[in-house]
């Protein structure tokens, strides 16, 4: 069925890590319709391309795919999109096949496979500069003639390298609307035949001179060394968590100062009463308590995006594969799991790149155990209030505790995966087959854009979720009466019902109350605590950390931290699980098992800490 459309649609197709996404950003200015999560492109993205003469086209960025079989969910998305099999989306009018010029010999047969889609196709040889450095010379004219498709060389990251491609697209777009495709290869050709043909073509079109070791090979001598490699990985992760603490202090103090000043000004202008309380105790305190963590979130993502863009992430998957094999998964699951450190939602979606369905389910179920950015505000708050910032050797004690919490999440995730693979999700054929891309310096603009996007997602959550939640919490902790403390309020009444469940694990009434709105987002626990205590005028300290330090015992604080290692409560995560697993069975299972673990861990922490006299 043909869907009416005005502009020609062009799809970017190619292997994972061939530079499609940076080419997409370069051609469209990075304005895409689907949110770009760091990590694998799991959804396809759409953007607009304008040629120098003002012709327009719609550009699709698809998940990386090698052939046309579709072994995993995200590969099937790419192939269905090309074939026009996605509901409500017209098939593209043409394909820009992007290939990393360095690996032309390995992947040329994928172009011949792509010709079988029958669409007009142009081959873009990306990263020609790196190929030249590696001693690879490509005769474009010979390649074009032998392949039967036009070939454009390109360095996507440089504007001069893109201009050539834009000129080509300029001339190509009018041809596309005529709807003439390429002649497919012989249908009877097997993959083996196509490979043979591709090797013959590259033998005449590609000259590879003997060359010295490439940069990538030199770096990999250390990074993929069986002993040094895992040590380097641990150091990188450790440095990441240390940096999140050590570098963010001054910026956070700045943000706190801004909110404090605004609150002071508003407080002095407005008359005493409910409106002043709503704005200062409810909105400014609640939203400010979460926004203060922007510096940490940005630093965390600065690392994750850098690891991703540089090509290190696939190496990390290689390095952890042995460990993953022990629990019945493979190294590929590392990438969704690392994304889950930002947020479980892109992580759960990125699990689509895992071929085995059982492995994918296992990965989805353990993804919420990775320390997502919504948990950081809780960790930061409680750690800063209860753990001294003293040095242990060369390390900051607060950083060590945070690292310990993250490690606890990972360890329990591995145990959970191991148990799941032995019981409910037994079987499946987990394999590892992964290309390790050459190292490259990240494109500065793409990098900054990615970082900006992540920070904005965090800030917009503060607007969409935390602001309304703060107002609701403010109302619940103030009315109908606050005369006898929290007990007289709506929140106090709700908390009283739940308190008996949580009392055995040492949670106070305030903590129980903060967990209810935290269903909307985990960091709401922080803004709720801020509002709960801010409304209570008896609290002398204006900083939430100080209030908590005075009100909670250390055992209680540690139990709260232990709870948040598991923290089953996050409606968005459960919703995306339902979507990705087509039903409520797995999200309900995830909630139940995480709740039980959270309860047991918090209880154990509380009683052990108490018996140790803390």
């Amino acid at each position: 069925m043909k869907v009416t459309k005005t502009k020609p649609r062009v799809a970017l197709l190619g292997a994972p890590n061939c530079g499609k996404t940076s080419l997409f950003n370069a051609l469209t200015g990075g304005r895409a319709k689907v949110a770009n999560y760091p990590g694998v492109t799991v959804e396809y993205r759409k953007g607009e391309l304008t040629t120098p003469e003002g012709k327009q086209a719609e550009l699709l960025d698809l998940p990386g795919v090698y052939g046309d079989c579709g072994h995993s969910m995200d590969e099937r998305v790419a192939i269905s999109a090309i074939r026009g099999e996605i509901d409500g989306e017209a098939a593209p009018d043409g394909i820009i096949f992007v290939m990393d010029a360095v690996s032309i010999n390995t992947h040329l047969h994928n172009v011949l496979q792509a010709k079988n889609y029958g669409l007009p196709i142009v081959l873009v040889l990306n990263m020609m500069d790196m190929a030249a450095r590696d001693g690879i010379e490509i005769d474009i004219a010979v390649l074009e003639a032998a392949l039967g498709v036009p070939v454009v060389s390109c360095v996507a990251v440089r504007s001069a390298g893109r201009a050539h491609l834009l000129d080509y697209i300029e001339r190509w777009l009018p041809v596309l609307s005529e709807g003439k495709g390429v002649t497919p290869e012989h249908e009877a050709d097997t993959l083996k035949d196509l490979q043979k043909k591709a090797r013959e073509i590259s033998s005449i079109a590609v000259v590879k001179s003997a060359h010295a070791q490439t940069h990538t090979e030199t770096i990999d001598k250390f990074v993929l060394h069986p002993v040094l490699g895992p040590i380097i990985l641990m150091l990188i992760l450790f440095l990441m968590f240390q940096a999140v603490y050590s570098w963010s202090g001054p910026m956070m103090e700045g943000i706190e100062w801004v909110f404090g000043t605004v609150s002071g000004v508003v407080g002095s202008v407005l008359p005493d009463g409910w409106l002043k309380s709503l704005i200062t105790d409810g909105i400014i305190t609640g939203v400010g308590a979460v926004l203060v963590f922007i510096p940490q979130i940005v630093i965390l993502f600065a690392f994750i995006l850098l690891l991703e863009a540089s090509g290190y992430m696939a190496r990390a998957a290689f390095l952890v594969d042995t460990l993953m094999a022990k629990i019945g998964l493979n190294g590929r699951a590392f990438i969704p799991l690392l994304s889950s450190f930002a947020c479980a939602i892109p992580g759960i979606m990125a699990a689509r790149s895992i071929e085995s369905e059982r492995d994918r389910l296992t990965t989805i179920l353990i993804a919420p155990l990775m320390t997502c950015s919504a948990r950081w505000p809780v960790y930061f708050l409680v750690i800063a209030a209860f753990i001294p910032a003293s040095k242990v050797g060369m390390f900051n004690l607060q950083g060590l505790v945070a690292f310990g919490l993250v490690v606890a999440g990972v360890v329990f995730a591995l145990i959970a995966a191991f148990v799941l693979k032995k019981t409910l999700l037994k079987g499946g054929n987990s394999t590892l087959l992964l290309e390790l891309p050459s190292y490259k310096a990240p494109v500065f603009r793409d990098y900054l854009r990615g970082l900006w996007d992540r920070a904005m997602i965090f800030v917009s959550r503060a607007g969409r979720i935390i602001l309304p939640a703060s107002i609701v919490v403010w109302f619940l902790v103030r009315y109908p009466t606050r005369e006898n403390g929290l007990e007289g309020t709506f929140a106090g009444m709700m908390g009283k019902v739940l308190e008996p469940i949580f009392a055995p694990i040492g949670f106070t009434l305030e903590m129980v109350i903060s967990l209810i709105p935290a269903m909307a987002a985990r960091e709401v626990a922080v803004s709720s605590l801020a509002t709960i205590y801010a409304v209570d005028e008896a609290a002398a300290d204006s900083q939430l950390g100080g209030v908590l330090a005075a009100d909670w015992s250390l055992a209680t604080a540690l139990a709260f931290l232990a709870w948040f290692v598991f923290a089953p409560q996050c409606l968005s995560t459960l919703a995306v699980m339902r979507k990705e697993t087509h039903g409520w069975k797995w999200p309900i299972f995830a909630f139940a098992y995480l709740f039980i673990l959270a309860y047991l861990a918090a209880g154990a922490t509380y009683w052990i800490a108490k018996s140790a006299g803390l």
Partner: protein
Amino acid sequence: MTLNELNRKLTARITGFQTQDHDLETRLREIGFAEGDQVELMHVGLFGRNPMSVKLNGALIALRRNEASAVKIEVVQP
């Protein structure tokens, strides 16, 4: 011999595939393994020398020994 038996710093040529798993053969071919191509062992994991990575026509491919056993090779030079 098969690729999983390849020891360090040897270059070998792929002679074919041997596996009951047709899907695995397709995946190996799609990512770039083909008859006649040269492979060189580059890196191995810490435990059981697993997984392994091989240089294949300028690309670096990581795979487990289990997958590698589907690739038949002959050693080119000792």
